[in-house]
Every structure is written in C-alpha cells, then in structure tokens.
C-alpha cells in the first residue's frame, strides 16, 4: 500500500490484494478523509484500468447508463456512451454507497453481484468497489455524525465479498503519521509490480481447491457466530471460502517460502474482512470474530470422532441440540458423562440446565447412559423441578394491591394455550415455570423455555421408544 502512497494500511494489504485476485466486490468503511477513495482510485491507476468513480449520494441511475436512444429499427433501445457511463469500465467505485436513494441502492445489487446493469452484462468490468462512512451510534462524537448516512441494507452488504474498516489518523503510529505528512508527490509512486503480482496470485488462486479442513472450519465458524446472533447466508459462506483461497494465494505470493504460509492466517483474514455485519451492525466486536475463529480452527483440527463429539457438545448452545448429541449411543459412557458434568457446571442459563435435566433424566436412567456421579449431577438439577417448594416473591404496586404476580401472567398464557391440546405438556410447562418463578429471580421467557422443554422431551421420548 505504501507504494501506492498509502501509509498505515499495511494490515489491510493482503485482503485488498485478495479482492483484486478474486475480482469480488470490495467495500471500504471509514471516516471522512481516511483515504478510502484515494486508495481505490490509485489501485485502478496502478492496474491501468478504465475507471469510473461515482458518488452515490449525487448519482442518478441514468448517469451510469448514458442517454437512451432507439435503435434504427425502432425495436430496441441502446445507450449513448458518455465519459461517465459505465459500459466500458473495467473498475467502478461507488462512493458514499450508504448515502444514496434506496431505488438507486437497489439497482446496485445486480451490478455488484452479477456485473450487469438493466439486464445487460458488463463484459469489461473486472472490479467493483465501494466506500462508505461508518455506521452511526448514539454514542458517536459530533465529528463522527455524517448527515444522511444509514447502515447499509443487509442484502446489499451481503453482496460485498470483502468489507474492511480503514484506520483513522489516531490509529497510526508516529512514524506513519510522519510519512503521511511528508508525502506530497504522487510521482514517487511505483506501480510496476502490482499487475504482475496479481497475475501470479490469480494463477495460484485458480488452481486452489478448498480442503476438507477449510470446509470444516467454515461450518464451525458459522455455527458459532449464529450462536452469537450473527447469521451468515449460504452465499456468504461461499464467499468466505473464496476469500480464504484468494488470501492464501496472496500470502503465498508475498512470502519467500510459500510452503510455510499457514492456512489459519488466511482463514482468519477471510472471516475478519468478509464479515458483512460490519456494514450495518454496531453491536459486534473484533473479539467476537477472534473467539469464533479460534474455536472453529481448534474444532477443525480435531479428527478423533470422540474428541470432536465432546467439543461439539460443549459448544452447542440450544438444549435440544445438546439432547440429541448426548443421546448418541456411539459415544463412550465416560466421555458422555464427562462432557455433561462439565457443561452442567459451567452453564450460566439456569433454566436451560434445569429443563434439560428435567426432560432427560429418565432417558439417562433407562439405558444407564451416565456414570453414577454424572447421574447425581443431573438429578441435582432435575429434582428441584420435579418438586418445587419455595416462595414466589414480587413487588406489589399500590395500584395493584392483592393482584397476582405479574411475572406469572405470561406463564399462565403459555400454559392455557397448550392445555387444551396437550394437558401433559401443559403440566410439564407449569412445573418448569413454577421452578423458574421460585428459583430464577431474574426472569425468563416462558414461551421460549416451553419450546426448549418440549423439544428436549420429545427427543428423550423418541430415544426411550427406540430402545424398548
């Protein structure tokens, strides 16, 4: 990046180069004046591309197309090309992409994803780039408030293979700041090697195939991020895999000894710079991605089926998924018991733990699936649900003297909704809710809890039925 006149972007270099290798859409996110536009324009210059730079906030879609005129036969329309129309462009930069009108934004979908516009293929177009200011949060300082900026439409964000946050002045070291201040001439800049570097990396990329380990990694990482509330679409999963291959090709080309380049680095960078929520959600942290990557990588390394089962059981979040896994008879009794005891000890969701044990302990007994100690641990959480004894406490407002506990009303609604159809199910739900009301003071969602309980119960019932 420094050869292009950009300093402090070194950490982004592999991902930017990978986007040039794969030719997939790239989105830069950063504050005003951080060099996003400069970088992308310089890239096109360095690669000798016919480049179009549009400002989405000022753009009318007709500007991209040129002036429409009927063909001489009067049966079709063609567009008169102008210096600003997109038809012959090899690279296109849509600046301020989160500031344009929704109807224009919608038309970018096909441009970004399929390299076509109005149904007409843009055969010359190689690179699709965009830039935007960061999404706003209520805590942003006045300098960070950009008029008219909106979080990017998730569907549009999902079309960008690479999305990266560029650094600001305060992120730079003293030496980088000095370099930026002393840089005043573009003439020093050398582009010679960029095209040949990209060509070599493209050859490597086209020959690369995803390994089983890589597929495993992406399956794990998507599950882990889903648990954290970040959905990754099937399209995204394919993109992430392509990103990883492109990044690996770039890292190999950059390194003197390509054999020593770790695929793990490529996978992490693919995830980090291919995470679409970066463009529209303020509630994720880099640590979330790092934790998901570390765990997924560790899981992808495990080849022993028992170890894999153990790790997956612990990582599974939903009680019903844990129920399915724990009733897997191919798993050794000691391993099963160990995993269960470990989970029960560290589970912070008391209701999940209680409903799981309540629904499953008879199934465990039925086939002696657990060691005696593990069974005791299960009963420790199951029996207080089987037999609830304690006080229901609540704060009674002056306006509601002698009324019922307000936390009980939603429980009662769930119970009455199912009582007519399945009285046994309602009885189980009531028992769980009473346990929750008496023992779990911080409140819970009765509807969700009942669904988890019922799912675990049915899994256990199926298991017992199949083993009779």
């Amino acid at each position: 990046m420094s050869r292009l006149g950009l300093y402090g972007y070194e950490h982004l270099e592999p991902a930017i180069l990978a986007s040039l290798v794969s030719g997939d859409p790239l989105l830069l996110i950063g504050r005003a004046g951080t060099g996003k536009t400069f970088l992308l324009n310089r890239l096109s210059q360095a690669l000798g591309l016919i480049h179009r730079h549009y400002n989405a906030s000022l753009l009318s879609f007709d500007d991209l197309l040129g002036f429409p005129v009927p063909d001489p036969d009067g049966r079709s329309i063609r567009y008169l090309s102008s210096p600003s129309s997109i038809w012959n462009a090899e690279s296109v930069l849509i600046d301020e992409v989160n500031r344009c009108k929704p109807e224009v934004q919608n038309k970018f979908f096909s441009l970004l994803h399929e390299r076509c516009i109005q149904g007409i293929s843009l055969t010359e177009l190689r690179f699709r780039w965009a830039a935007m200011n960061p999404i706003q949060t209520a805590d942003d300082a006045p300098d960070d408030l950009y008029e008219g900026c909106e979080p990017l439409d998730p569907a549009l964000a999902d079309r960008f293979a690479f999305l990266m946050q560029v650094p600001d002045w305060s992120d730079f070291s003293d030496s980088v700041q000095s370099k930026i201040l002393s840089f005043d001439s573009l003439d020093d800049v050398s582009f010679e090697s960029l095209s040949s570097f990209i060509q070599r990396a493209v050859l490597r990329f086209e020959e690369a195939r995803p390994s089983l380990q890589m597929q495993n990694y992406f399956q794990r990482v998507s599950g882990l991020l889903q648990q954290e509330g970040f959905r990754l679409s099937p399209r995204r999963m394919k993109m992430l895999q392509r990103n990883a291959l492109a990044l690996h090709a770039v890292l190999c080309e950059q390194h003197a000894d390509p054999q020593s380049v770790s695929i793990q680095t490529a996978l992490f960078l693919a995830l980090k710079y291919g995470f679409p929520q970066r463009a529209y959600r303020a509630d994720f942290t880099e640590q979330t991605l790092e934790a998901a990557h570390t765990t997924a990588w560790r899981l992808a390394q495990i080849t022993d089926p028992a170890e894999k089962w153990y790790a997956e059981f612990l990582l599974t979040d939903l009680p019903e998924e844990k129920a399915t896994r724990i009733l897997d008879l191919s798993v050794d009794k000691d391993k099963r018991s160990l995993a269960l005891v470990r989970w029960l000890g560290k589970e912070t969701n008391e209701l999940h733990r209680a409903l799981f044990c309540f629904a499953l302990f008879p199934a465990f007994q039925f086939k002696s699936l657990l060691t005696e100690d593990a069974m005791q641990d299960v009963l420790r959480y199951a029996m207080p649900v089987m037999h609830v004894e304690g006080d229901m406490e609540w704060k009674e407002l002056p306006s509601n003297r002698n009324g019922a506990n307000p936390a009980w009303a939603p429980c009662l609604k769930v119970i009455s909704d199912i009582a007519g159809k399945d009285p046994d199910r309602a009885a189980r739900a009531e028992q769980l809710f009473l346990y929750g009301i008496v023992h779990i003071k911080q409140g819970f969602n009765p509807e969700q809890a009942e669904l988890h309980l019922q799912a675990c119960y049915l899994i256990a019932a199926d298991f017992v039925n199949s083993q009779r």
Partner: protein
Amino acid sequence: MEALDGLGAFHNSGGPRSRMRIEPIRSAYLENTDLVCVSRKELIQFQLPSPCPDIRSFLLRKFKREMGLTQWQDIYRAASLPRIPYLVLPAPEFEARKSSTLSLFHALILARCNAFSYRPKGEFIFTEQRLNRCIYLVKLNIPKFYALEP
C-alpha cells in the same frame, strides 16, 4: 384512599408504597394425578432422639435390643435394602404423622439417600440431617413418563 391509590396522589406525602408480596409455592410433578408415571412409591421416615451425640452407637443399641443384632454386617444383611436406585422426593409432614411406620431399617435407607436419590451402592452416612427426614422413595415408570404406549 382506595380510590386515589395508584393515581400518584400521595407522591412525597408518605402515602401507600409498593410492598413485597410472598406466596408459598409447592408443586410436586409426580403427585399430579393426571400423570401416572410412578410404578412404586414408599414412604420412608425416621426420627432420632434429641440430642443424639453418637448416632451409630444409638442405632446399634436399638438393633441389639429389637433384633438381637450386634454387628453392622449382620444388620446390613438382615435389612435387605433396595437393590435398585430410587428417586427421593420430600413427603409432606402430615403423611409422616399419620403413618406408624418407623422402622429401624428406614434409618439405614435414609443414611444411603442424598437429597435426590437412593443409591444401592451408596455410602451409609449417619447424620441427623439425613436420618431426620420423611421422604418418598419413588420408582419412575419411564415409558409412561414419556407418554409412550405400553
């Protein structure tokens, strides 16, 4: 007062305030008559004299007086304790009062029961907390628990 209650008329005037309500809850899933999933249920109870500084000696004296047994091995053999695990559920006090069963063997069973289960190979732990209890030993009918057809 009632009519004004909740309207904010007593703000800063020492008027009625919110208060904590406490309601005792007791719900035993297996006592629900609609859910017939118990295949066996035994009331087990014992009461130590108070104070009872040496529980083992006290029990040994009782076994000697009532059954002529002086060794723990003989007592365990004679007791023929349950050989399958049971669930332990607290029994209501009125059940204990109306029952006349106060077998010495119950003391042995209770010594083997923790708060949740009777373990046939569990250790005998003779403490006041364990022995002064009134519990049900419950054997669950597992297929019925899961509402499976016989």
